[in-house]
């Protein structure tokens, strides 16, 4: 069936923008209901403590207070954790309000509801907890010590999970190879910092047992099914709505205590209950990302051939599991081979509980962690054998393939062609020119040295084939759904199971459907994020929306076209075989003026005056698409830096990203995703780090201490693409939401190390702050600054 592509591939301006640039958007804090109460959480200022008693009496008597509740006062179950990745994983119980133990800065012991925001916050400050403080452990090393205090005593250990990928190939190679490189890398905790904090509003009609939850989330569908269980609300009586959501980056890919509490308190009080997170709360009570260390081994030849890769990881899980916590390092476990083709491979990790905020997905979720250590290790190898890091990568690339091929990690990679992106990136970065400049500055012992860092990556998106998720012990499937309804006036309503929060699905989905049905994007309205309006869906995370939810559109349109063809044949009095779809209409072969467009057929199907026998009125369809495989974007990022060897300060001179996300629907949106992803990766490489003091308090506890880069810290980026269509889906799309964050941290750190490697520096730590770089140079020189 031929489709004329007018909009796919075009830079269609976003349909989402008008309300967002005029202040008419509908973020969660704009929601107000009659009789609405405000909720505030009581988070005592302790890191690890036994709770002896909680005194709510003073708070209860304060102005406007409607109720103060502890765990004992509310009927609410444990929060959902849906990815028990091994049979013997130890799973801590995690209640919305902790019962007898505070285990991290963000643990709440009580919740207040009051008439106003201020009254709720005032009262929360007047709830006191009598506690016995306990020794706290906020580093993995401390938590793993034999005599470490236990975060959850009933589990018997802070090490709660050990997941091994199992090896492939000759494991002896790590001892016998002519070149063996061993490195240890640490990636600190990161705080996602969506600019909109979390928030929710719960409302109930008690007589009907019906509940609505508006919540700033990436996952209204998953929230509905899980909160139904937590709160004891029959699933069909719970409606979850994600309104306009101000960024997520994984931190809103979760089901949180406050959502459950707002629901049960709306039942308890009979009034709507609203909670808006303060930024200071966000730093402790919303999930963190990363927080991992790796021992890495590369076995290779002196000529530059990588023979084996081995990674042993320890992951900081925090004080509890949130929705996916130990699944995040496992997700990385499938990409440690990168775009290369080693014969031998090993990956395993241990998950460790600490007295810190739970970790969970943060943009890239496991894949940035893996890509960082792999790409750092490849650079270390290139340095050791004295080869150009670009050429070492090139000689190890998996050869091009356009038939799905099993990687050494065990999953099928859909397609790949890695060298063109490397070539293009080297060209855009003026690689040889900068190498010459670098040599000249080294020869001149300049204070400001040049460094060039590469990162050649692959990642996996399209999470995920449901049968694979099942095999990996994930509780849900990875399909998604779309409903397309053709209206009699020629307009189209699309309801998608994905839930965008900045990615522009309304625009991109409209482009796909406009081309498929022969209408314009302006003829289409896309509905999302409301469990009562859309088909059952699986939401937005893991760069899955286009490669799963977007592909569901394709299959829904196939159904629509099949029915439309039947009606067209009937109206044109020909057999269906005599029709072809061309130039946005079903046309009689040989007589193309005899034609019916989809909007014309939608009207016929609606008035239903003359439909062929057995054809139902209306032109609409729902498709549920379960991807047969993941999709695997790839690319090359190159960062060129100038490092001041006296101060340790790094300036980025050039940043080049050549990504391959398969077929591109909207290049403008794709580039925007890369810009934002790279910026977050640069932030990770140079600025951001969650720091706890010795007693376990988060010292980077606000935007004044945690360094989110501004416009002067992030450089302009030079972007380009190669296009290797995915073989997984008929659109050929792969996904682009996380690529920038996956590829960029090692490119930046490799560049910083490269700038000072001639001084003997092999690592600078992450983030590469001026102090760290300065210390690394001093240490390499034997302590003399």
């Amino acid at each position: 069936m031929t489709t004329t592509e007018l909009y796919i591939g075009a830079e269609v301006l976003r349909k989402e923008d008008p309300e967002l640039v005029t202040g008419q958007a509908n973020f969660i804090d704009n929601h107000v209901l009659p009789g609405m109460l405000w909720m505030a959480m009581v988070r005592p200022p302790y890191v690890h403590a036994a709770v002896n008693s909680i005194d709510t009496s003073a708070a209860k008597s304060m102005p406007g207070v409607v109720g103060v509740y502890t765990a004992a006062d509310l009927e609410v179950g444990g929060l959902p954790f849906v990815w028990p990745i091994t049979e013997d994983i130890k799973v801590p119980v995690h209640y919305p309000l902790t019962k007898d133990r505070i285990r991290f800065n963000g643990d709440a012991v009580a919740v207040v509801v009051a008439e106003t925001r201020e009254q709720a916050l005032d009262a929360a400050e007047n709830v006191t907890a009598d506690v016995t403080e306990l020794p706290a452990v906020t580093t993995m090393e401390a938590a793993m010590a034999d005599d470490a205090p236990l975060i959850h005593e009933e589990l018997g250990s802070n090490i709660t999970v050990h997941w091994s990928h199992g090896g492939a190939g000759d494991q002896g190679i790590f001892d016998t190879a002519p070149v063996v490189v061993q490195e240890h890398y640490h990636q600190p905790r990161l705080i996602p910092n969506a600019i909109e904090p979390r928030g929710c509003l719960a409302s109930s009609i008690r007589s009907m047992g019906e509940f609505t939850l508006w919540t700033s989330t990436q996952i209204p569908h998953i929230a509905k099914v899980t909160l139904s269980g937590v709160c004891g609300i029959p699933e069909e009586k719970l409606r979850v709505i994600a309104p306009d959501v101000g960024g997520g980056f994984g931190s809103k890919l979760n089901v949180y205590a406050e959502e459950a509490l707002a629901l049960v308190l709306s039942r308890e009080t009979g009034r709507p209950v609203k909670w808006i997170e303060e930024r200071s709360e966000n730093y402790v009570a919303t999930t963190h990302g990363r927080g991992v260390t790796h021992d890495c081994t590369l076995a290779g030849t002196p000529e530059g051939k990588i023979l084996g890769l081995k990674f042993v990881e320890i992951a900081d899980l925090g004080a509890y599991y949130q929705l996916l916590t130990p699944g995040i390092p496992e997700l990385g476990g499938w990409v440690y081979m990168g775009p290369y083709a080693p014969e031998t491979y090993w990956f395993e990790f241990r998950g460790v509980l600490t007295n810190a905020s739970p970790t969970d997905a943060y943009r890239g979720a496991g894949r940035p962690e893996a890509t960082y250590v792999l790409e750092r290790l490849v650079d270390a190898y290139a340095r050791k054998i004295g080869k150009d890091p670009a050429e070492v990568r090139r000689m190890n690339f998996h050869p091009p393939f356009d038939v799905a091929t099993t990687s050494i990690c065990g999953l099928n990679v859909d397609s790949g062609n890695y060298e063109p992106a490397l070539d293009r990136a080297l060209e855009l970065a003026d690689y040889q020119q900068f190498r010459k400049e670098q040599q000249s500055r080294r020869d001149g012992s300049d204070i400001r040295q040049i460094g060039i860092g590469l990162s050649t990556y692959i990642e996996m998106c399209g999470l995920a084939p449901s049968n694979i998720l099942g095999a990996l012990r994930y509780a849900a499937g990875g399909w998604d759904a779309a409903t397309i309804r053709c209206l009699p006036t020629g307009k189209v309503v699309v309801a998608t199971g994905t839930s965008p929060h900045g990615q522009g699905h309304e625009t991109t989905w409209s482009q796909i459907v406009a081309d498929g049905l022969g209408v314009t994007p302006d003829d289409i309205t896309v509905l999302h994020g409301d469990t009562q309006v859309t088909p059952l869906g699986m939401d937005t995370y893991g760069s899955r929306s286009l490669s799963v939810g977007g592909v569901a559109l394709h299959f829904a349109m196939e159904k629509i076209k099949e029915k439309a063809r039947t009606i067209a044949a009937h109206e044109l009095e020909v057999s269906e075989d005599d029709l072809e779809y061309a130039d946005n209409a079903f046309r009689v072969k040989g007589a193309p003026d005899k034609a019916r467009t989809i909007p014309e057929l939608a009207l016929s199907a609606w008035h239903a005056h003359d439909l062929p026998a057995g054809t139902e009125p209306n032109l609409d369809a729902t498709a549920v698409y379960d991807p047969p495989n993941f999709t695997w974007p790839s690319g090359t990022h190159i960062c060129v830096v100038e490092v001041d060897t006296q101060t340790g300060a790094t300036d980025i001179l050039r940043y080049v990203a050549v990504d391959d996300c398969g077929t591109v629907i909207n290049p403008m949106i794709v580039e925007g995703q890369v810009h934002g992803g790279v910026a977050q990766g640069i932030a990770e490489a140079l600025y951001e780090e969650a720091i706890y003091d010795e007693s376990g308090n988060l010292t980077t506890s606000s935007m004044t201490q945690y360094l989110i880069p501004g416009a002067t810290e992030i450089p302009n980026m030079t972007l380009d693409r190669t296009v290797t269509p995915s073989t997984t889906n008929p659109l050929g799309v792969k996904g682009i939401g996380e690529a920038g964050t996956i590829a960029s941290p090692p490119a930046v750190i490799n560049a910083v190390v490269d700038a000072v490697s001639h001084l003997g520096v092999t690592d600078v730590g992450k983030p590469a702050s001026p102090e760290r770089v300065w210390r690394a140079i001093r240490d390499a020189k034997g302590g003399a600054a």
Partner: protein
Amino acid sequence: MTHVAVSVNGTPREADVEPRTLLVYFLRETLGLTGTNVGCDTSSCGSCTVLLDGESVKSCTLLAAQADGRAVTTIEALASNGDLHPLQEAFHRNHGLQCGYCTPGMLMAAASYLKENPTPTEEDVRESLEGNLCRCTGYQNIVKSILDAAGSMSGAKA
């Protein structure tokens, strides 16, 4: 309670508020002007940027009482007579926003800055955004949007 009288988007508005009421909550909750967003509690992110007597301020940093007798302009009044401001047009044209949460603050900060410096360089624009954080765009298209708007605004005047 404190009595506050402020000209907001050209209309006199007054109310009795708690003395501790921040300007941003006066705008959002007392007046229902929810276009101005709150992103932090440390005056770091700039999402709440509005104009006070024509100059950009972070409305979470001021008490409503401090705006008494003064003129406030919010994102709701950036477009005039149904026509988008050149900055709003430029942000749309250049994909200068993704989730859009920081966008009202970015637009108000940029509107104030372009009045000060109608022909900025890229570096000028980046420095002018020092007080506004965006987590989605990497700033590249925000900067491009503001330069584009500066061009169309100076072109319109010429």
